[in-house]
């Protein structure tokens, strides 16, 4: 029941955020601050994870295709497509959930518990305009950069493995040629679109749960856990249906 309530409220927040977008010029500074915060906090970990993700993908496929003559020349296409269609946006979204979603919930839940949200309301200041809308804009602005960054570093990780591991009898040149041949703009755009949808899910779910928190410090912790679980399930569900649509 609580999950349904959270999602219902997330829907309301979505509508309210669209209404508040007319105040975007006034909130521009806040939006930029949230964008920088999201990028700055997430970029290093996205980089590290993506390099290893691309590397592992290249290693596993290279090892599996070892016995089929010439099949290792397709490692580039496998790593390239997997990264930009699935792993890039998905891993970035999971990291964003852990780093940003949880911190948004914790911050808003604490503001809610300590009556700061009520204080805003009594001042006739909209919490959605001040707290939700700038985060949504920041998330939507930052997500494509983070996803693309993850894709490129994933591809680089794959290339490093192809160049340096003995079990793979292919070359870096072949890796990039195969990657270029199969990865087209459509695949990249599909991944970026997924990234934007995931960003919306992360921000709205974390804001919804945060703003609805009542009680004390224990409830703040419970809300953060709930955000992580609900967001990850929602991202995977959304990923399946969007992937099906884009195929």
């Amino acid at each position: 029941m609580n999950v349904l309530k959270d999602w219902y409220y997330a829907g309301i927040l979505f509508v309210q955020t669209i209404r508040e977008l007319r105040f975007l010029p006034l909130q521009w500074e806040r939006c930029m601050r949230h964008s920088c915060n999201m990028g700055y906090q997430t970029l290093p970990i996205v980089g590290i994870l993506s390099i290893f993700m691309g590397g592992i993908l290249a290693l596993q496929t290279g090892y599996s295709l070892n016995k089929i003559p010439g099949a290792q020349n397709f490692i580039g296409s496998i790593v390239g497509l997997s990264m930009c269609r699935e792993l890039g946006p998905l891993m970035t979204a999971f990291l964003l959930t852990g780093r940003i979603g949880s911190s948004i919930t914790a911050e808003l839940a604490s503001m809610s518990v300590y009556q700061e949200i009520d204080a805003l309301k009594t001042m006739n200041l909209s919490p959605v305009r001040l707290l939700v809308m700038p985060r949504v804009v920041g998330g939507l602005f930052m997500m494509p950069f983070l996803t693309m960054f993850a894709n490129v570093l994933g591809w680089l990780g794959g290339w490093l493995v192809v160049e340096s591991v003995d079990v793979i009898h292919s070359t870096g040149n072949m890796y990039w040629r195969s990657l270029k041949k199969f990865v087209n703009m459509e695949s990249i755009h599909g991944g970026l679109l997924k990234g934007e949808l995931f960003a919306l899910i992360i921000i709205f779910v974390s804001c919804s749960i945060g703003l609805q928190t009542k009680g004390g410090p224990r409830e703040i912790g419970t809300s953060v856990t709930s955000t992580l679980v609900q967001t990850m399930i929602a991202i995977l569900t959304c990923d399946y249906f969007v992937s099906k649509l884009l195929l």
Partner: protein
Amino acid sequence: MGEKKSAVRICVKQVTKTFAKKAVLQNLSFTVQPGEIFIIMGPSGTGKSVLLKLLSGLDQPTSGEIYINDLPLKQVKKSNRYVLGLVFQAGALFNSLSIFDNLALYFRERQICKEAEIEKRITHVLNLLGLQGIEKQMPSSLSGGMKKRVALARGLLMEPDVLLFDEPTSELDLLTASSIIELIGYVNRHLGITTVVSSHDILLAKTIGHHIGVLQNGTMDTIYTPETLFQSNNAFIKNFLNPRVNLEHPQFPSFLV
């Protein structure tokens, strides 16, 4: 700031508020006259804070209506003309902002005046409340009493039609509490803002209250003045105002016996 606005009348009519089928407030009716200090008293858990939430529009009554100058509160709030200053029990200052930014937030977001004017107004109110020099500090570095003063400053800066205080003297030592009481009285005398205070502080009711309502079983039977309150023969009020500590025959809750 500093000029008297025409004070508003608050009229609570037949208000009931229930939580999970349990009525916290029942058919509650009373009027707060323009410019007066109305004290809502009662033991913990009798619905003082709930009533204050209803008066501030943060929550809606289950039935009944609250009127501000004969207009329903909902309607008045929507019109954006009614400004309300609610001073929360713990201050509810924005912890991520400095004191200056806390006080400036209302003006900046509503684009009421320019930065130089904001600074002038904030300096004036901080001086008035004896808070000069704390602008750059963060709320976490302030004591409980200071936080309440800053919250009052924030309320005053909005030039409110009504000032609401939720337990302004709770968790404070007697000296600090009396300075807060003096401050509320001073602000009311000089600005004439209609003020509603929820408290169980007898000193506060006695010294600055014009009228006092004691919540009992979700309602207020009689509205008292400080004089009539202390002469009341109502057993509940007598017991509330003069609680006895009986060490010889203490009355424990049943689960302790």
